[in-house]
């Protein structure tokens, strides 16, 4: 016959299933929150880290290295200054430099960034473990008014190759200053990469120049309107770029080239190593992450405290039951186990439900989070770090379960078979 304690624990919980269920739910919510914060933290880091690979240096105007990385690669924030085109050309010509991809930011399309770049972007930009961008349809831009759209842009507006789109001036929202006289034709749609490229419209640097030919300082020159077909007569070679991605022939040279660029005599420039700069970013973000994690750990503590309170409250009513069990041959140790097992089962159920809750939430909100905030949430099994957290929760639950168990043990020793109400 099975251990009587198992059966009794189970039946006793079943008997109080409403309280038990509510307790389990409160623990589950706490666990889901804790794991959710951890997963968000981990996935955000992984997402950031996998956004750029294969690029040795990012070059921009003199400024903070984190800021440069954020606006150039992650499209967060704006550049304060540009890099002049002669500098870009000279950096590209440095003996250690293998390739250079200039980026020109500042325009947008219906809330998505427009990135002016060269065809080299599709060749050299790498994400994750060195994966290149892939086309779902079409090809890189070639002509002046051709554009390639990221997967998210295409999905949001249902864009397909051949459609025409209008670029707005400025990076914010839907601009009232539209470059509507010079529409672009979509020639390529990219596959989803989980990077900011998904939320970008890529055009050539010359295209960016072309739509600004009759603009000065963010507004159209009054009375001047140069039609798209005439714009080709102008000098459309780029005058500047916002930033540039640089690949070196040998990574060994990375610090030498970085020093060269940082000491650039013609203008103040900054070159950063993406990996090292991300590390800097984590150091800043880590404080907030730890605070979030601490708050969710507190929520778990509150959940477990509630669990202990519920079990202890039930103990008052169950003193008679425990005395009866003693008379039937249960040892104080078995009474202890009965109560400890009950708390543990509740916590374990809470943890399992918490994992399911998190998975359901990730499945439900994940796509929205990814498209709206570019945060890819993995719907995987809990990671090692999450298992560790779960282990910590169960450890805490084990400790917490000792409280009611110990009280019941004391009762059953003190009461003997005196049945107290």
């Amino acid at each position: 016959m099975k251990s009587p304690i198992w059966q009794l624990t189970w039946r006793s919980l079943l008997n109080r299933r409403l309280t038990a269920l509510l307790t389990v739910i409160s623990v589950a919510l706490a666990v889901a929150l804790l794991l959710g914060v951890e997963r968000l933290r981990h996935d955000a880091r992984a997402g950031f880290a996998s956004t750029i690979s294969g690029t040795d240096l990012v070059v921009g105007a003199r400024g903070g290295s984190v800021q440069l990385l954020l606006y150039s690669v992650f499209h967060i924030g704006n550049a304060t200054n540009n890099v002049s085109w002669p500098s870009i050309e000279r950096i590209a010509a440095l003996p250690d430099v293998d390739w250079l991809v200039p980026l020109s930011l500042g325009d947008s399309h219906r809330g998505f960034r427009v990135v002016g770049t060269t065809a080299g972007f599709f060749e050299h930009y790498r994400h994750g473990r060195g994966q290149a961008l892939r086309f779902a349809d079409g090809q890189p831009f070639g002509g002046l008014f051709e554009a390639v759209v990221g997967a998210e842009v295409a999905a949001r507006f249902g864009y397909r190759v051949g459609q025409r789109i209008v670029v707005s001036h400025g990076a914010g929202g839907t601009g009232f200053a539209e470059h509507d006289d010079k529409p672009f034709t979509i020639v390529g749609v990219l596959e989803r990469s989980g990077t900011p490229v998904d939320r970008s419209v890529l055009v050539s640097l010359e295209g960016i120049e072309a739509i600004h030919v009759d603009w000065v300082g963010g507004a159209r020159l009054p009375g001047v309107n140069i039609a798209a077909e005439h714009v080709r007569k102008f000098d459309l070679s780029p005058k500047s770029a916002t930033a540039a991605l640089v690949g070196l022939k040998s990574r060994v040279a990375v610090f030498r080239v970085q020093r060269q660029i940082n000491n650039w005599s013609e203008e103040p420039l900054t070159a950063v190593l993406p990996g090292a700069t991300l590390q800097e970013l984590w150091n800043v973000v880590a404080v907030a992450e730890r605070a979030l994690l601490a708050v969710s750990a507190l929520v778990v503590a509150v959940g477990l405290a509630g669990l202990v309170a519920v079990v202890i409250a039930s103990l008052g009513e169950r003193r008679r039951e425990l005395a009866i069990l003693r008379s039937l041959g249960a040892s104080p140790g078995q009474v202890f186990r009965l109560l400890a097992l009950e708390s543990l089962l509740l916590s374990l159920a809470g943890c399992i439900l918490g994992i399911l809750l998190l998975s359901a939430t990730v499945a439900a909100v994940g796509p929205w989070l990814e498209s709206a905030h570019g945060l890819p949430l993995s719907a995987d099994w809990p990671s090692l770090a999450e298992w560790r957290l779960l282990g910590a929760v169960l450890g805490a639950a084990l400790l917490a379960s000792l409280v009611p168990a110990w009280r019941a043990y004391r009762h059953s020793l003190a009461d003997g078979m005196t049945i107290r109400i």
Partner: protein
Amino acid sequence: MSTAAPAVALRGLRFAWPGTPRPCLEIDAFELAAGERVFLHGPSGSGKTTLLSLIGGVLDPDAGHVAVHGQELGALHAGARDRFRADHIGFVFQLFNLIPYLSARDNILLPCRFSRARRARIAAAGGDPAAEAARLAARLDLQAALLDHPAAELSVGQQQRVAAARALIGRPPLVIADEPTSALDADRQRGFLDLLLAECAQAGAALLFVSHDGRLAEHFDRVVALGELNRVAGEAA
């Protein structure tokens, strides 16, 4: 086990609740023969339940000897005493002494879960626990349909009969009943008492029946007043 050994033998027993200066029980000698049915009466607070806890091995005496069925309880460590109690003693308490969330059947079967010896005795008699529970229930006038009900849904009289079946299952040599009829009305008291006496006789179990109600005493082999046994009873009461 020899049938000659008394069901209960107490000698020089003394017990005080921790934290109280005076002992609440002092018994020089008491014996309950195997198969004997004794009515132990005393007013509330005279230490009856304490005495039963000592006989059950749930409490340890400060001095003296408690032997049940020839076994000196003091010679057993705590875990062995718990097993010994499960194997040899069936208890019936006052009101509400069932586990409320178990069905009547599971309540009756509960001692078999704690005691291998009770299961073995049932097996030796050629039965199995579930069939034995059904047989006892039938003898105690419990309808089979009631056995699947949670104990909490039964009437008080039904609960007491389930409790009796639980005490008797697996034929423990000693049945201890602590005020088992105090919650029943007079008619049901008689009915329950008759059933309990008959079943103990049938199972060959000794019965120690404790009550403050002297009117029930006439059905027993022997009547003992706890006040006469217990030298401190006067003060405790």
